[in-house]
C-alpha cells in the first residue's frame, strides 16, 4: 500500500506532461480524420504507429546505424574539446588567443560542411558523419570546459597557494571539479547536437541503412508514414541520450546546486 503510494507520489509531477502528450496525439488523430487530411501531407498517428510496427526490425537496424555515428562523433568531439580546453587553460595566453575564434566558430553552421566532409571521407563511410558531429560538438564542449577551468573562486586559488599547492594540484583538486557542472551542460547540448548532426548530414547522402538516407528516400517516394516512423526513432534516441547524461550528472555531481534544486 505504502509502496504504491510512494510510486504514485513520484509520478504525480509528471502527470500534466503526460496528459498534454496524450492530448496532443489524440488531437492530431482527430484533426487528420475530421478534416480528411491527405496521407502525404500528414499521416495520422495510428497509421504511423502501424507502419512503425510493420517495419520495426528494419527501423531498429537503421536507427542503431545512425546512433553509432552520433555516439562516435560525440566521443571524438567531446574528448578533443576537453583536451584542447585543458591545454589552453594551462597556458592563459593560449586560451585568450583561441577563445574568440572558438566562440566565433561556435556560431558557424558547421552542418553546411557536410557535403565536403562526405567527399573527404567517402559518402558511405560512417566516419564522414562522425567527423561532422565531432566538429559540431567540439566548440561548445571546449568553450564550456575552459570556462569551468578558469571561472574558479579567486579566494580558493589563494587558499591553495597558501598551502603551497602546485599548479597540478590546483588543477586536480580545484579546477577540474569546478568545471564538471560546465562540462555536463556542454554534454547535454552536445547530445542533442550529435543526433541532429548525424541525421542531417545523412540527408546529403550516405549508407542505405542510415536514418537520414531512409527518411529522404521514403519521402521522395511519398511513403510519409515510413518517414515519420524513422523520425520517431530519431526523437527517441535523442531524448534517451539526453536522459542518460542527466542521470550520469546526478550520480557524479550530486552536490551541484541545479541538480539539488531539481530534486526539491
Amino acid at each position, binding site marked *: 500500500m505504502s509502496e504504491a503510494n510512494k510510486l504514485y507520489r513520484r509520478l504525480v509531477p509528471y502527470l500534466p506532461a503526460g496528459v498534454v502528450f496524450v492530448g496532443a496525439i489524440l488531437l492530431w488523430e482527430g484533426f487528420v480524420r475530421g478534416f480528411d487530411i491527405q496521407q502525404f501531407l500528414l499521416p495520422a498517428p495510428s497509421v504511423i504507429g502501424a507502419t512503425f510496427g510493420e517495419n520495426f526490425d528494419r527501423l531498429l537496424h537503421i536507427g542503431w546505424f545512425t546512433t553509432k555515428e552520433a555516439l562516435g562523433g560525440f566521443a571524438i568531439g567531446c574528448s578533443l574539446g576537453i583536451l584542447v580546453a585543458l591545454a589552453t587553460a594551462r597556458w592563459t595566453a593560449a586560451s585568450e588567443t583561441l577563445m574568440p575564434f572558438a566562440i566565433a566558430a561556435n556560431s558557424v553552421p558547421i552542418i553546411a560542411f557536410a557535403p565536403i566532409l562526405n567527399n573527404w571521407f567517402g559518402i558511405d563511410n560512417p566516419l564522414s558523419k562522425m567527423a561532422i558531429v565531432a566538429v559540431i560538438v567540439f566548440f561548445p564542449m571546449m568553450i564550456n570546459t575552459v570556462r569551468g577551468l578558469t571561472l574558479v*573562486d579567486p579566494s*580558493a586559488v*589563494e587558499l*591553495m597557494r*597558501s598551502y*603551497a599547492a602546485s599548479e597540478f*594540484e590546483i588543477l586536480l583538486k580545484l579546477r577540474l571539479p569546478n568545471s*564538471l557542472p560546465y562540462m555536463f551542460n556542454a554534454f547535454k547540448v552536445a547530445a542533442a547536437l550529435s543526433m541532429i548532426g548525424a541525421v542531417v548530414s545523412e540527408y546529403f547522402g550516405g549508407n542505405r541503412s542510415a536514418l537520414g538516407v531512409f527518411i529522404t528516400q521514403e519521402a521522395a517516394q511519398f511513403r510519409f508514414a515510413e518517414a515519420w516512423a524513422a523520425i520517431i526513432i530519431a526523437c527517441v534516441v535523442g531524448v534517451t541520450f539526453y536522459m542518460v547524461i542527466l542521470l550520469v550528472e546526478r550520480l557524479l*555531481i550530486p552536490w551541484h546546486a541545479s541538480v539539488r534544486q531539481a530534486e526539491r
Partner: protein
Amino acid sequence: MNPAISVQNVDMVFPAPGGAITALQDVSFDIAEAEFVSLIGPSGCGKSTALRLIADIHQPTGGSVTVAGQSPGQSRIQHLVNLMFQEPVLLPWLNIYQNVSLSIEITKAKDHRDPAELLSFVGLKGREKDYPGQLSGGMQQRVALARALATNPRILLMDEPFAALDEFTRDRMGNWLLSIWERSRKTVVFVTHSIPEALYLSDRVLIMDANPGRIRADVRVELPRPRDESMREEISFFEQLKAIRSQMPKSLYVEEELNGG
C-alpha cells in the same frame, strides 16, 4: 623573544592601467607570539594587503616582512601560517570532513590535528558528511576555521571572517573564537571594519589610514582576559571604544557631519 611577525618599512605598489596604486607606504609593526592583533581602518587602507604579504600571496615592493624569524615564503612552505577569508571558501563537491582534511592532504603537515575532533571542537559534531550547501553561513565559517586550524599553524590570518554574517551571529562567532583562542593561544592577525569587534577580541588594535595605506595609531587594549559577553557592557569597554574612535581617520566621519549639518 623574537616577534612572531615583523613588518619593517613596507611599501606595496600595484601596477594599474591609470598609474600605479600605492596600497601601503612605509608600514612597520611587530606582532608578538600568541598575541591577538586587529587591523582596522577605512576601505582601501591596505589591511587585507598587509595580511596577504604575511601569507606570501603578494611580495612587498619595498621593506621587509619576517614571519617566525624567516621569510614569508619559507613560512608558507613550512605551513606555519593559515588563512581565513570573509567568505568560507569551502569546496562544494567535498563534504565538510573532506573540506577540513583538504588542507592536511595538500600541505602533508606532519603534526596536523584530527578533522573529526576539530569539527566537534567548532560545534559541528555529527555533521561531518553534510555538504557546505546544507549549512548556514555561520556554520560554514566555523568549518573554515576548523580547516584553518587543521594544519596546526602557529599564525592565523583572518580577513574580515565574520563580516558577511548578521550581527547576532557575528557576536556569537566572536565569543566562540575567543574561547578557542584562550585554549590554543595562536598568534592571530584579524582584519575587521568593526571597532567593537576589534576591541572585544584583541590585545592590540592597529588603526590604519587610506590613500596611501599606513599605520595611524597602535592602541593597546586594557581589558582583562578571559573576556565574555558581559565585557561588552562594561564602562571600561566604552571608554576604550571612545579612545579608539577618536583615533580613527577624520575622513570616515566627514559624510556624517555633512548629513548632520
